[in-house]
């Protein structure tokens, strides 16, 4: 009976569409393909929601409230709409979705190469090869940690971790910890490690500061309502830059607390500039900390102005608490520029410096001179699509709730492309 699920789908063969990755995005695409009766299979290297099961730290919760967790035809229905899902909640949510849509998932099937083959693609896996007319890359934006080159020069006495290998403070020795990166991840790890009684130094570059709650409402409610999350990739000034922006400084806690640099320094975390090098056992930090914090404070101010203006124009002002402004980021007069790791007993460095997707198996010439996947709002090449990348089609593209609009657009484009090759009309743009 173990093989019952496998027998439903051939071990390999020909199919219209191969979706690589059974996370929320790949499953959402599966649902939209099924709605269009397009024959497809979802290949998953591990289990459904694999990286959520194996590559997340223990205390992680989503940055979005539960009410916002939705996928095509599916939404959160629990008792705590304002709460934030834990990792196991997310696994349960995505697992439940896969069952709900009856997705044709082939788990424990690792894609080893994708090559162009006639007017389609050939997808090789460790369990046989598939021929298909279209491929959807849904393996996620978090393939490999983007660790700066300086990491290679760290002394051997220092343990380096990334958000994929960090689990909880219990795995660390008692030495000090340098956390590199001031995204949501960097701040969350700095916070919990500092609370565990260890000394924490946080290296801060460009960052996005957000309050958890603004005028009584979750900031994600505001970003959603005002339309900021729906902003399109082809309507922003500099999409390359917009895609590089780190995740905003947020945490999902039962207290719905704001986690910003001021909260961390109040608890004893020391702030330093961006890590720019390591030489002779000394970490070197940029002197640009003040500039980066001033920029984040300014951007926060501009955002809140925009939210307040929206509330006023919509006549929402009377129902809401008054506008708030937050204290500027507090900094020491002269933050340190160097850190002798041995002398200061720093035994762990955690690189919360982002990720890049891993397309090492994609043997199709679709990369730019820096090895980044080229795509136009998720359209990579004829019959080749990608999902879930940062600001891919919309600002919300990398969020769970951001998948729906993207997969609706791209599945329509994909379906039109299949019809074209069947002798139908040319696909329109996916706008």
């Amino acid at each position, binding site marked *: 009976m173990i093989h019952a699920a496998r027998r439903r789908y051939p071990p390999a063969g020909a199919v219209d569409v191969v979706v690589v990755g059974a996370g929320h995005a790949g499953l959402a695409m599966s649902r939209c393909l099924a709605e269009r009766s397009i024959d497809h299979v979802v290949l998953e290297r591990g289990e459904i929601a694999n990286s959520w099961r194996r590559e997340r730290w223990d205390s992680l919760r989503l940055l979005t409230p539960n009410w916002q967790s939705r996928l095509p035809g599916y939404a959160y229905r629990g008792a705590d709409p304002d709460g934030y899902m834990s990792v196991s909640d997310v696994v349960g949510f995505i697992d439940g979705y896969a069952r709900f849509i009856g997705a044709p998932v082939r788990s424990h099937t690792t894609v080893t190469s994708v090559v162009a083959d006639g007017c389609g693609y050939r997808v090789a896996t460790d369990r046989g090869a598939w021929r298909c007319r279209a491929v959807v890359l849904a393996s996620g934006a978090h393939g490999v940690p983007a660790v700066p080159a300086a990491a290679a020069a760290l002394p051997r006495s220092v343990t380096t971790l990334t958000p994929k290998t960090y689990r909880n403070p219990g795995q660390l020795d008692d030495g000090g910890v340098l956390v590199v990166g001031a995204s949501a991840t960097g701040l969350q790890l700095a916070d919990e490690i500092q609370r565990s009684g260890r000394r924490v130094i946080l290296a801060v570059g460009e960052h996005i500061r957000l309050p958890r709650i603004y005028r009584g409402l979750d900031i994600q409610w505001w970003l959603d309502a005002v339309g900021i999350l729906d902003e399109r990739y082809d309507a922003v000034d500099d999409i390359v830059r917009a895609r590089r922006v780190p995740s905003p400084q947020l945490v999902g806690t039962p207290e719905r607390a704001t986690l910003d640099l001021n909260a961390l320094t109040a608890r004893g975390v020391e702030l330093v500039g961006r890590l720019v090098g390591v030489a002779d056992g000394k970490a070197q930090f940029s002197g640009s900390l003040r500039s980066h914090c001033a920029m984040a404070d300014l951007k926060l101010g501009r955002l809140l102005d925009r939210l307040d203006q929206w509330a006023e124009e919509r006549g929402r002002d009377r129902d809401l608490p008054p506008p708030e402004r937050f204290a500027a980021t507090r900094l020491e007069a*002269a933050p340190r520029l160097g850190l002798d790791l041995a002398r200061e007993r720093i035994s762990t460095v955690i690189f919360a410096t982002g990720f890049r997707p891993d397309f090492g198996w994609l043997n199709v010439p679709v990369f730019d001179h820096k090895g980044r996947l080229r795509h136009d709002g998720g359209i990579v090449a004829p019959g080749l699509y990608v999902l879930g990348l940062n600001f891919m089609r919309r600002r919300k593209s990398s969020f769970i709730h951001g998948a729906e609009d993207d997969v609706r657009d791209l599945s329509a484009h994909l379906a039109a492309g299949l019809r074209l090759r069947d002798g139908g009309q040319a696909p329109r743009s996916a706008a």
Partner: protein
Amino acid sequence: MNITAIKADNGVNVEALLNARQALTEAPEAARFTWRAQCAWVNGTHSRSVVHGFFGLGTEQAHKTEFRYDADHPEIFAAEDNGATPVEYVLVALASCLTAGVAAVAQNRNIQLRSVKATLEAGMDLQGILGIDSEVRNGFDGIKVVFEIDADATEQEIAALVAQSQRRSAVYDILTNPTYVAVEVR
């Protein structure tokens, strides 16, 4: 006839800059520039540097004229004070780089500037260069830049101009981040 919005004019050709950005995005090898200076000792701590040629856009380039800079030290250093000190040139470089950035960013954001003044101050403990205390560094212990800007813009917009000019400034980057320096003798 079209009704045109009032355009700020800070004397910066933003269109040319944006076109260059586009062109260099497509041809990254042309974006590789080499800047040069030559310096000759005159007497005492007095030296004279010249800049003229540089490399960029795939070929040798040159300034319209050769620019010369005398550097020396003040009389309290038992020198003849034939020019600014080298560290003051660093302040000049930072000030002019940030100021050029303010003008360019203002133009790009259609903000008319009326005046931009920057005052710079840098602290230095001479115990460093005199070798009195090895814990004291030779260079500045910090630089303070104060901008006074009169422009058709809100306080916030002006603060954003200054923030953006730091983000795009070469000299700001050179000063805030380590740079590998190779000094050889021929």
